[in-house]
């Protein structure tokens, strides 16, 4: 059985914490528990929020007590290890050109790499989507190669444009909306990651993502098609894996 801790986050949320590090194995456990509990439709549970290493369960304590909820979780964690996790594989186009990559030369200097090497290393990896958070549809993807791991900017920028691809530590994010940001911006993705009218986040926790470098011209073409609503974005494949 997996080790976990139950931690109260006030009287209407409970945290199931599997660990305190970024680790695909912990992420898989979190996502499997989320899937299992969502499937149970426990009366009094309002929503579950998976993160890197824990699952927050929002509940109505006048319907289900914290103790009763803890018992349900206990029972579930004991039996959920065989459940399969399903994910999708995405190839997302990114323009790493200087028009968008405002921090690329700075990242190259700090990592003692050529700009082209930064692009090659960033686009060579297959990223795991750990969680969505901070902004609607914003996926935290890892792990960025240690060669490119940098601390956040000491002072965040007041604003970066929607679609900005940025890195910090071992994480990579495409920011779906214009936002203040302290990460290093190295490109821009023309694919909209969030549509409130559906509601739809393109990416889900558990998905795998690879970034495909495209020219500024191709970026513009895709961006135009996206704004006209005629760009269909499909995963390249799906996979089913076993929970660790």
């Amino acid at each position: 059985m997996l080790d976990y801790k139950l931690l109260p986050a006030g009287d209407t949320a409970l945290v199931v914490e599997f660990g305190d590090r970024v680790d695909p194995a912990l992420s898989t456990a979190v996502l499997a528990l989320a899937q299992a509990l969502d499937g149970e439709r426990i009366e009094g549970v309002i929503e579950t929020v998976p993160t890197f290493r824990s699952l927050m369960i929002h509940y109505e304590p006048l319907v289900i007590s914290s103790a009763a909820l803890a018992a349900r979780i206990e029972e579930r964690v004991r039996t959920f290890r065989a459940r399969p996790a399903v994910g999708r594989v995405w190839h997302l186009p990114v323009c790493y050109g200087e028009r968008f990559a405002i921090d690329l030369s700075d990242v190259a200097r700090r990592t003692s790499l050529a700009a082209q090497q930064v692009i090659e290393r960033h686009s060579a990896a297959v990223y795991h989507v750990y969680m969505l958070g901070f902004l609607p549809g914003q996926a935290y993807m890892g792990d960025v190669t240690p060669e490119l791991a940098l601390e956040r900017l000491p002072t965040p920028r007041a604003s970066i444009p929607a679609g900005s691809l940025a890195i910090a530590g071992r994480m990579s994010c495409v920011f779906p909306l214009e936002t203040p940001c302290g990460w290093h911006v190295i490109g821009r993705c023309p694919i909209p990651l969030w549509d409130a009218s559906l509601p739809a986040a393109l990416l889900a926790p558990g998905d795998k993502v690879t970034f495909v470098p495209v020219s500024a011209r191709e970026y513009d073409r895709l961006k135009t098609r996206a704004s006209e609503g005629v760009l269909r974005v499909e995963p390249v494949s799906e996979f089913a894996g076993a929970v660790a």
Partner: protein
Amino acid sequence: MTPALRIMAPGLSTTVQDLGRHGFQRLGVSVGGVLDPVAFRAANKLAGNPGHTGVLEAVYYGPSFAINADDARLAFAGADAAVEILDGADAERGETIDVMRSVRVRRGQIVRVGPIRRGTTLYIAVEGGFAIEPVLGSVATDSRGRMGGWHGRPLREGDVLPLCRATASERDECLLEGLDLAAPRRIRVVLGPQNDWFAAEEIERFCTGEYTVSAGSNRMGMRLDGPALRHRDGFNIVSDAIATGSIQVPGNGQPLILLADHQTTGGYPKIATVISADLPALGRLPAGSKIAFTPVTLEQATAARRELFAALDAIDDKIVRLTPPPAAIAARLLECNLISGVCDAAA
């Protein structure tokens, strides 16, 4: 012409709010919604609305707006304000009414709210509500996510907010009596989820210290100034989910309480969480207020939540009809043919 409110001056930050959007935090969508659900409920009940109808939430300085409808019923609840009703844009002075009541206004009249005193938030409900399409089940304004409310942002001069009703219903105006909206000085918390990031004496400091609400507070979070809290071992945690009321302690050691518009995840240790029953009070605390934290058990928090729900239900019983002036009563009785014109009831 579509019935509407036309914003002449937006105030400091006025947004459309309701009880927020639930069920989408896993997509990174904040819950949002009103800062003070008690005053929100009072405003809707005074307007004759279901308790969850979208309203305007004004903070510190309220809006001015014109009535572009035959007539409309408004209700004001929350912190104190001198609400002025003027007969058109050229009028110098108008009738001033108190909050915690409803009022009927007619086409061309202008409502001026102005400074909000003894608190921070004032709710303005319109009978029937605003004709605004919900996004993910809510009309709450999500400024960070740029959705919901009026174009996903606070109101601006010139905005025209469509109303569901073209006229007010025929009924007397109402007054709400005896609703205590004073913010307590002591805020109750449940320790955790990351209280183990702090040594026992730091927890003690947190629970015994006095904190001042900072002017840097907003709908996302309440910044506090007071005894700084030292972390045991750094202030960066691997990001996890945030609940409304979470008290995170960043590197400078000054706690920050996350409010309605908080982001869904964050990377600072959270020493404690304000209990759900005390969240409405947080929405009433102006900058400069002094507060202190009292740890309670989950059982105590749940009991307090039950009391809050009972207090919300009791709002209906506190609503009384505004007594019309005696002349109006006499006229009304005459209308109803209940008294004869020759009989003077006062004689």
